[in-house]
């Protein structure tokens, strides 16, 4: 688990243009964020490129980061995921040639679903509990969209269900998650 106080400190010092603090921030968070990009992009060269772009952006915007809004890891993960998704959906780029079925299976292989592998952090536990309230389809489509960056269309194709059905799973699943997390005092 990454220490939130340490990350806050490194972010603040990076905002003050302290290169050494920024290098340390990269050393602590780079491997996790690289893995996040890799899951979505499934090509190492692309993930390297996205990681590089993301950290240059983190450096440039560190002084606009406000810890009152979100935790450093949330902020940095959002930057990496957004860049990876943008990269994936650039016109004329096919996201590798692997079949998404492999992904669906790999998620299935990871146990009873994403809830099992959620971390030990309190927020993670709360999310895991709340995910249990979702139907299998809702849970799986949300996890595939988040972790592997699948679009509605890709989800529909690989879960072999109409687009409208998949969209409804996601929408209802997210609504339910929010209702559950907001009524759970251990979260945020």
């Amino acid at each position, binding site marked *: 688990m990454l220490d939130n106080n340490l990350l*806050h*400190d490194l972010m*603040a*010092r990076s*905002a*003050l*243009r*302290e*290169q*050494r603090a*920024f*290098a340390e921030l*990269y050393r602590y968070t*780079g*491997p*996790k964020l*690289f*893995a*996040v990009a*890799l899951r979505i992009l499934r090509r190492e060269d692309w993930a*390297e490129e996205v*990681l*590089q772009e993301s950290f*240059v952006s983190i*450096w*440039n915007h560190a*002084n*606009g*980061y406000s810890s*009152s*809004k*979100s*935790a450093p890891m*949330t*902020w940095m*993960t*959002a930057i990496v*995921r957004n860049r990876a*998704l943008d990269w994936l*959906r650039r016109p004329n780029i096919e996201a590798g040639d692997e079949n998404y079925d492999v992904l669906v299976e790999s998620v299935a292989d990871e146990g009873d679903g994403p809830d099992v*592998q*959620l*971390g030990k*952090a309190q*927020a993670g536990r709360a*999310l*895991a509990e709340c995910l249990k309230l979702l139907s299998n389809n809702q849970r799986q489509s*949300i*996890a595939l*969209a*988040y*972790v592997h960056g699948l*679009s509605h269309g890709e*989800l529909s194709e690989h879960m072999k269900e109409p687009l409208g059905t998949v969209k409804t799973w996601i929408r209802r699943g*997210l609504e339910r*998650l*929010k209702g559950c*997390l907001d009524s759970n005092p251990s*979260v*945020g």
Partner: protein
Amino acid sequence: MRDALAAEYALGTLQGRARRRFERVLKEDPALRWQVDQWQERLLPLSEGITPVTPPARVWRSIDARIQGRARPSGIWQHLPFWRWLSATAATALVAVSVYWGLWLPTHNANKEYMVVVMSDQQLRPMMTVSWPMEDIGKAKLRIRVIGHQEMSPDTAWELWVLGGAERKPLSLGLITTHETQEVTIPSELLAAVNAAWGMAMSVEPKGGSPLGKPTGPVLYSGPCTKI
């Protein structure tokens, strides 16, 4: 509806033109931005199961190369590239600000050595100066000049930080105002840090100052120390 869109944006399933349009709205809608932040926070634990993978060393080398020149060196402030950086970016600012200095320094102190910090915004425009005499620092006060008529957002405070060195954290010199000229007494426990400072920074904090004893809000201005 807004929250549903914020959720799908954070999840990544809001795509194409809708995503672009949503991002444009986000820039001007802090309430929506907040909803997205909330969703990113809620969904983050989904990434906790992802096993970290160490990226190749070339990634950091590229990042490092790209941020050079936009960085302040840590600790080795007397190092040559620092002065090169200073002369490239801040010398003009120093000249501009020295006009103020003529008015600000009492003439009989002309032989004294002063430390001057020209603090600039992100575009390297000088926005504020802090100065103090080098000798007799125990009795000295920091003289602060805010350049131009500046305004502070309501319910915020400006906090001044001394940057003492590579390993040390920014230390708070207290809150300042937007007044054009002001003086701040150096807390006695910070005399050594001010003496060894290589730079200063000013961050926007909640009313009453940072609750954490370190900068939590955006850093508006910062700059290196220069002896004159």
